[in-house]
């Protein structure tokens, strides 16, 4: 399982967000450049449609691949009471033939994206990852160098944390608590719940930039 929240921030405020995150996390950022391919099963394959994502980490000297399967969000009264989305997620590192294999099995490319930005990985009540990235689409198949931002001037912020299936509450609480520190700059919510940019972002960003950073909390 994983706990997830998302939000958006204007590109002009990303530097301020980075300063805030640096202070909160106490670790250095890691560059992020991931080619994400979303594959879906052909019409005759499986009793229902299935989807799998192939992630190619382009930041490494040798590109490395991961296969990821994300399940549907947890539902019910328990899910509605928590501010983060909880969903099944399974990942597997794979060698470089994954795309060929899935094509041969009857999967088709539905869409592909390029995510470029940075990530913070840290421990704060849970193993949390914050990614800040520009999401771009490709005008031609696999044309990474020609990728264009889906939302120019806006970047996606994602906070995720793995959680055991039988006890996700603590992780959800840790993620939720951490997100409160980011509130002046952006609002984070469950994926699919649109909130837009926060009105205090500009002032908060200006404060962070003028202070030259915040002490580690």
């Amino acid at each position, binding site marked *: 399982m994983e706990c997830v929240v998302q939000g958006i921030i204007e590109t002009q405020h990303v530097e301020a967000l980075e300063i805030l995150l640096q202070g909160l996390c106490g670790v250095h950022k890691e560059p992020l450049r991931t080619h994400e391919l979303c594959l879906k*099963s052909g*019409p*005759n*394959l*499986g*009793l*229902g449609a*299935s989807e*799998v994502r192939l992630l190619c980490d382009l930041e490494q000297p040798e590109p490395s691949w991961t*296969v990821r*399967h994300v*399940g549907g969000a947890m539902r019910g009264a328990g899910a509605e009471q928590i501010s983060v989305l909880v969903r*099944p997620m*399974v*990942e*597997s*590192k*794979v*060698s*470089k*033939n*994954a795309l*060929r*294999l899935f094509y*041969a*099995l*009857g*999967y088709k490319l539905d869409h592909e994206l390029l995510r470029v930005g940075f990530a913070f990985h840290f421990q704060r009540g849970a193993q949390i990852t914050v990614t800040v990235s520009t999401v771009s689409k490709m005008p031609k198949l696999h044309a990474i160098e020609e990728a264009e931002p889906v939302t120019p001037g806006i970047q996606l912020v994602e906070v995720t944390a793995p959680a055991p299936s039988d006890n996700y509450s603590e992780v959800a609480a840790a993620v939720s608590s951490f997100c409160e520190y980011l509130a002046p700059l952006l609002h984070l919510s469950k994926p699919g719940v649109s909130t837009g940019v926060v009105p205090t972002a500009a002032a908060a960003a200006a404060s962070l930039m003028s202070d030259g950073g915040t002490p580690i909390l």
Partner: protein
Amino acid sequence: MPLKWVLHWQPNAGTTVNSQILSEVSQCVESMNGAKGGRWKSNLTYYRPILKEQANSAEYPRDFLGISLAEQPNKYYFILRGQRIVLEADSTIQTIMEKLQSYKSRVSLNFEGFQYQLGDFRLRVGKVVPSHSENVRGIVLEVEYLPVSSLEKSRQIMEEFVDIWQEAVSERSLPGHFMHMEINFGEYGLSDHYTSQHTAVQYATVMAQLIATVQSTVQLARN
């Protein structure tokens, strides 16, 4: 990692493999002063597609295999022989395949037995049995040469060892012999430097040969 050759037992025409042959083979290793070690076990699974319409089944691969190897307990290997594709993955890939519900396990076979040390060589003698069954469907022999990882550089010494081994087995007048299949690993995108992906490809090839042998035995019986 050290390279290995995976040999399989090829029964003479009209005969089948059985536990007695397996026992003789094990005794042969021990007679060569092979120091018996622990047990080993690998598994191979055939997957078939789950389709809404069976009419189009030819569009999907019939040779989709998954393999877990004793030497790599945290990895899983997928192979499509017809398309010369091999994939190494974390074991969690099996969970992903279950969740996708597009392919399901059809037949599962275990390769299991004991390993032996003979100087710089490590041998694994194993029976091939369907999961949840004790019927011996085949015999495999892994010959691993520990000092070397290069397939080409080790070729001569491996051939010499296998010749000695074949001679030792032939003295027992068993109804068959061990075979080593030459594989073009380059077609799978694999290099001269040996890896567990090479082992997975060898097992897939051995299985294809075992199936062909069983099918020809059945055909002979019918004729």
